[in-house]
């Protein structure tokens, strides 16, 4: 009985370090993609938008700014969907007027 009990505790406790490791891998990867350490991101996003809007007409929701941290570097990803040429044309006309 005691051997059985031992085996049982062995298998359950063996799991706990493994569980910890798996949970950490998820939480840490999330933390990194979130750019948890970059609280300047909202401001950066706002200022970039202001500059871009000076030249092209963009939908504020069509701008995506993300910071990803890898081993030794960070990647700032900027994704902007530009409007179709026709829409852009009319925007330019307005600008001229």
């Amino acid at each position, binding site marked *: 009985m005691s051997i059985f009990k031992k085996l049982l505790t062995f298998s359950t406790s063996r799991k706990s*370090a493994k569980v910890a490791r798996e949970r950490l891998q998820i939480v840490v990867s999330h933390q990194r993609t979130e750019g948890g350490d970059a609280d300047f991101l909202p401001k950066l996003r706002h200022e970039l938008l202001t500059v871009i809007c000076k030249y092209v007409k963009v939908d504020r929701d069509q701008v995506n700014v993300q910071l990803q941290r890898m081993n030794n570097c960070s990647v700032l990803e900027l994704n902007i969907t530009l409007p179709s040429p026709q829409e852009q044309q009319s925007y330019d006309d307005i600008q001229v007027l």
Partner: protein
Amino acid sequence: MTKLESKIVVITSGKGGVGKTTTTAALGAELANRGHKTVVVDFDIGLRNLDLIMGCERRVIFDFVNVIQGDANLTQALIKDKRSENLFILPASQTRDKDALTTEGVEKVLMELKKEFHFIICDSPAGIERGALMALYFADEAVVVTNPEVSSVRDSDRIIGVLNSRTRRAEQGLEIKKHLLVTRYAYNRVQRGEMLSVEDVQEILAIPLLGIIPESTAVLHASNQGVPVTLSGSSDAKEAYRDAVARLLGETTKANSQKSWKKLLEGLRLFSRSHV
């Protein structure tokens, strides 16, 4: 002014109670023992403890904040360790709050210390508030103290992110050297699968390993007496800290580092067997 090449090393972790102050005292004392003029600086304004761990709590007259605010000069505030010729302590203030640490003030004090000391070891408070940010901002290297436990590892990952983005070196586009120090390691529990292994922690945090400090009764004994672990009687923790200092000084080459880790782990295993 001087040609002395000096280094600012921050001891940080994010999470509290993982062994930052113990590590600061142990590394500082061992560096001094090896002939490097060293100062340990307490950044935990309002909750100072480094003086207690170093055993000089009754000799504190002026502190870090007094120096920043010009109420005392550095020589008045520095406490010379009675056991080691090369070791000095700059205590934190017990009464002020963390806002007393201004970037300009901290820079002024650190630059002055740089003229005198080979190693400036900054003991960071827990968290990522002003005190912790100030402790790491001017650092050349960082020791990330981590317990093999989920919340500590997560906080260490967070602090590594802060080191990569909010230090002066990072702002200048320079790399800040980071070292992982795993503390309170219980080899027998790791073997039983109850505790994260060093390999697990290292894989998640992805920074080079400086040392593994075993969970040891010697640490509490040393702090009870106000003696840095590396200045107290022989113990497994003392050996592990000495090993970490050798690595910090770049004494162990990459080629034999694998071997010495094996030796250390072997030693830990023997130790844990004899104590369980």
